């Protein structure tokens, strides 16, 4: 099974990769990519099944907090049944999204504002070095420069220094991060295609 998995990973990966450079392989590449889309959709369903199993086990074992798992399962099955029968694009499903999903996630993101501010306050207590100071000063400056004042904005600050910091001073680091990420992606992808890394379970 492991050998088959490695062969499949390398073979399909090479087909798709070569399709970038050889248009002859674009047809096969498209077929493989369509398979991948189907598999990704199946993987989503598998993930939901796994979630169901985990919480179902918690309920059957009567573990601590199993009441919450019951709520989760009930919400999941109701939503899934309605989603299957009505369709996700149904207006009633839209109401469900607006009533639960968006408010909860947005509120969780709103809590992040408090947490980030709290972390920024306590940063210098934990760590006092040049990088921390520069980090905090830059953040404070960007926050201040992104806002306007009641009496108007500070043109030099808002229209010149802030864009320069964002597009020049911070751009170098951002580009370095992006290039680093790309290099890491390249290395990891090649290791997978060479069979050195097998994150799919082929060990």
């Amino acid at each position, binding site marked *: 099974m492991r050998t088959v998995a490695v062969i499949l990973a390398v073979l399909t990966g090479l087909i798709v990769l070569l399709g970038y450079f050889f248009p002859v392989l674009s047809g096969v590449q498209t077929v493989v990519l369509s398979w991948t889309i189907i598999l990704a*959709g*199946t*993987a989503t369903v598998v993930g939901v099944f796994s979630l169901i199993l985990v919480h179902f086990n918690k309920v059957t074992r009567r573990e601590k907090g199993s009441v919450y798992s019951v709520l989760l399962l009930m919400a999941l*099955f109701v939503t899934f049944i309605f989603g*299957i029968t009505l369709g996700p694009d149904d207006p009633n499903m839209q109401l469900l999204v607006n009533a639960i999903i968006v*408010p909860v996630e*947005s509120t969780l993101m709103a809590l992040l*504002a408090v947490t980030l501010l709290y972390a920024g306050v306590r940063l210098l207590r934990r760590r006092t070095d040049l990088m921390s100071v520069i980090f905090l000063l830059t953040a404070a400056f960007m926050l201040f420069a992104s806002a306007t004042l009641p009496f108007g904005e500070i043109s030099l600050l808002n229209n010149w220094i802030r864009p320069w910091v964002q597009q020049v001073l911070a751009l170098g680091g951002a*580009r370095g991060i992006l290039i680093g990420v790309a290099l890491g992606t390249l290395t990891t992808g090649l290791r997978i295609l060479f069979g050195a890394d097998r994150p799919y379970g082929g060990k």
Partner: protein
Amino acid sequence: MSPDLIVGALAFLFTLMIFSYLIGDNPLFRVAVYVFVGVSAGYVAAVAFRQVLLPNLLYPLVNGTTTQRALLATPLLLSGLLLMKAWAPLSRLGTPSMAVLVGVSAAVAIGGAVTGTLLPQIGVTINMFDLRTSTSPFTALFNGAFILAGVVTTLVYFHFGARTTADGSVRRFGLIEFIAFIGSIFLAFTLGVLFAGVYSAALTALIERLYFFGTFFGLG
């Protein structure tokens, strides 16, 4: 009671329950989170089934041509194997399907990283010093030097090759260490900007929630 009112009431209720976490962890917060996870998972599963599997796999298998069916035999088999991942005793059978997913994604990521990030970003870093396209050569050189310094020093900062010194400590080469120090400063600028952006986004989300409160109670 109109649907909008029900939706608004539920949204208000769940928002309040989540905000209760500011006081501390409490059952209301847990109820809201668990229900949210359940609804999200059910919704995602329904979307995946209705908008992915049904139009791309099941419909063509039923209504498609012979060629379509033949082409879909492989993803059908792989999908069946992938479903075994949900059951631990047979989870190994899903490995080939995962291998296809990972292999294709790795290949696509390689192509995108090379053609979409590496070459364009390296090219634009070099082209910053092309004075022919710049209206202000001094500014272009100045900005270009800053950006180049930021790119190089940041990349050096993430170079963790080191050697063991005489006293047993592990240190990078002296020049590398100095360049990495410069890179850390550039990174501090970048991360400071990112922190400000994240806080701005969170603050906007907070404002949006508060604005919802206002509109729900007729204040907004």
